[in-house]
């Protein structure tokens, strides 16, 4: 585990005082836990979520959204985090994808061909052209944390997919190779950063 490696490095370098070995015993490990049973998405909705999210972030030399179990994160959020309206909007949005797929291709999204699926998702993506990020300083940013499931369905879906993937261990450690403890600070270094273990 990366954090343990990093801690071992700190210990080896004499940076840390002696620490109890069960320091991180309270960690629950990756969320959701292995063997997670879906609580909100039904099998068809789940298949649709898996197919859509994997098309947004596919497997390359690292696993994609499916491998990172983004669908299970989405289920956790829909079950425990979303309010009734947000949950209904999300599920209605999923049904809307099938509706469009049926109108265009005469079948549900999961039954459409890969090319048909990509075509439909690209059209949805282009229809909700993104807004640029705005940066503020000081703790006065209007609360965005609670609005993750607000807005157009595809914006919400892409947002939660990207968030679920890059905050998974696969996205964070394998895909982006981010380190929790960089160990040093430099104003600027050349890209790509050679990240040392």
């Amino acid at each position, binding site marked *: 585990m990366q954090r343990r490696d990093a801690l071992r490095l700190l210990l080896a370098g004499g*940076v*840390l005082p002696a*620490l109890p070995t069960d*320091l991180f015993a*309270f*960690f*629950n*490990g*990756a*969320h959701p836990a292995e063997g997670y049973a879906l609580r909100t998405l039904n099998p068809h909705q789940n298949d649709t979520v898996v197919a859509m999210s994997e*098309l*947004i*972030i*596919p497997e*390359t030399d690292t696993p994609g959204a499916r491998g990172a179990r983004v669908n299970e994160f989405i289920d956790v*959020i829909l079950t*425990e*985090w979303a*309010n009734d309206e947000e949950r209904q909007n999300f599920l209605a949005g999923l049904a809307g994808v099938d509706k469009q797929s049926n109108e265009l291709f005469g079948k549900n999204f999961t039954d459409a061909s890969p090319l048909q699926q*990509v075509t439909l*998702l690209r059209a949805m*993506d282009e229809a909700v*052209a*993104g*807004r640029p*990020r*705005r*940066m*503020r*300083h*000081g*703790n*006065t*940013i209007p*609360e965005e*944390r609670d609005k*993750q499931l607000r807005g157009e369905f595809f*914006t919400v879906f*892409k*947002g939660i997919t*990207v*968030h*679920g993937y*890059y*905050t998974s261990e696969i996205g*964070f450690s394998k*895909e*982006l190779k981010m380190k*929790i*403890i*960089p*160990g*040093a*600070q*430099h*104003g*600027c*270094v050349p*890209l790509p*950063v050679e990240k040392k273990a």
Partner: protein
Amino acid sequence: MATNTYDAIIVGSGITGGWAAKELTEKGLNTLVLEAGRSIVPEKDYVEHVPVYDLKYRGWDNRAERQRTQPVQREVFYACDEYSNKFFVNDLENPYTSDPGKKFSWIRGRQVGGKSITWGRQSYRWSDLDFEANLKDGIAVDWPIRYADIAPWYDYVEEFAGISGQAEGLPQLPDGKFLPPMEMNCVEQDFRESLTKNYDDRIMTIGRSAVLTRVHKGRAACHYCGVCHRGCITSSYFSSLNSTLPAAEKTGHFTIRPYSVVHSLIFDPQTRRVTGVRVIDAQSKKAIEFKARVFFLCASTLESTRILLNSATPEFPNGLGNSSGELGHNLMDHHMGAGAGGEMAGHEDKIPFGNRPNGIYIPRFRNVKTKQKEFIRGYGYQGGGSRDGWSAAASKIGIGIDFKNSLKTPGSWRLGFGGFGECLPYHSNYVEVDKDKLDAWGIPTLKIHCEWGANEHAMSKDISVQAAEMLANAGARDIFVYQDISTPGLGIHEMGTARMGRDPKTSVLNEHNQAHEAKNLFLPDGACMTSAACVNPSLTYMALTARACDFAVSELKKNNL
């Protein structure tokens, strides 16, 4: 009971309580620290290395529960989050009221270490521009001290705490005893040069931060995980838990009692001294009394004042030591919410390394050498440069392999900064106790009356205009200007309500943070502030505390207390 008697009692274990504990115990006083909240065990409670994928909601927070129990605290969205909300109070247990349409956001941390666990660590000295301001402007009362009185104490606390920074030789922002500065990134360096070229009255410097850039007094250098407010297992930033409380512990004269909610002080009208403290045990809810020879109120600005207001006697019906009528008045905070950001060109082949827990600082330039027509006093900017990461890319167009691969490379360089503006001490901004509304321990709560005045609003406009202009002059594109003045309190720099002054008729404390009307009572936290300056106040609280402790012990030895 004899075991309830100490030489000194300190209320609170945050920045000032920790300093008072270190100073008084090192000077040999048998000292009791009363902390309202629980103990913190760093190995168990610090969460700075918890990966985001171990959080159930991946940083989106347990929204419904938090909206219920911490609606005020979670306004500090960057720190009261899914990781570290436990370092902020439960709003249901700690109620208060503010006026309709005049919200005040009161942010509190009740645990051993107080808010020193989550503080922003920015550490700046005041100058005589600040200490002389009230006198020159004819506002409120004059500070009873000047820079020369506090300068050696800044030296003293900086040498212990460890402040990294760059000396710049500015009269309005005196240099300190700095550890090596952290590095600015490429766009920050470009901006610093642009500022120096385009303006003769302003510079940009790296933030002066209570984070160690090398080993210091047995504490490790920062390892740049970048999220200090979640704790620090290597004790690399200054907090009571990381620094002052362990020093106090070493003396053998130190006792700390968590779960000790102070109700009020006991005043003896014969001796004119505080003789004890009434405590409610937070767990058993039983009342207990502790006695001492000298008392330090370090409970945080509004909590310290609340204790004094709740310590009324027949002689002091409006709060202990309040013959002046100023106790509770002249509440201040820094106003934020104005600034600008933009995209910076160049350096596409470069990226910052390490999560620097610090930003850049543009020191005050208004009303330093020249005079503004629209407002008095001034402001400083804090901010920084960075490259967009994956979260910014979520709103970009694209899906599939190309989209995924594009997120491996960081996006645009951006630079932005927001102002921290000085707020004037208005008598009409005040707190009073509400005897009908009690907290979870049966203690009367505060009614807070606070709003910004015309000076703050005029300054806020200038903050956003100047920010945008400086960015434009530095070649920034896609400039985003904002001006939405913050809710008072949200600066978490609440100050005043028991001000220092020269005259007992118009102030609560003297030049040594000693109550005019109870010589063995000291109040060195933010409540003592006579004006607010525009820089982050904690370093000044540290210096005032160490100075007040030195005075208190010398007075104790002379039998003057």
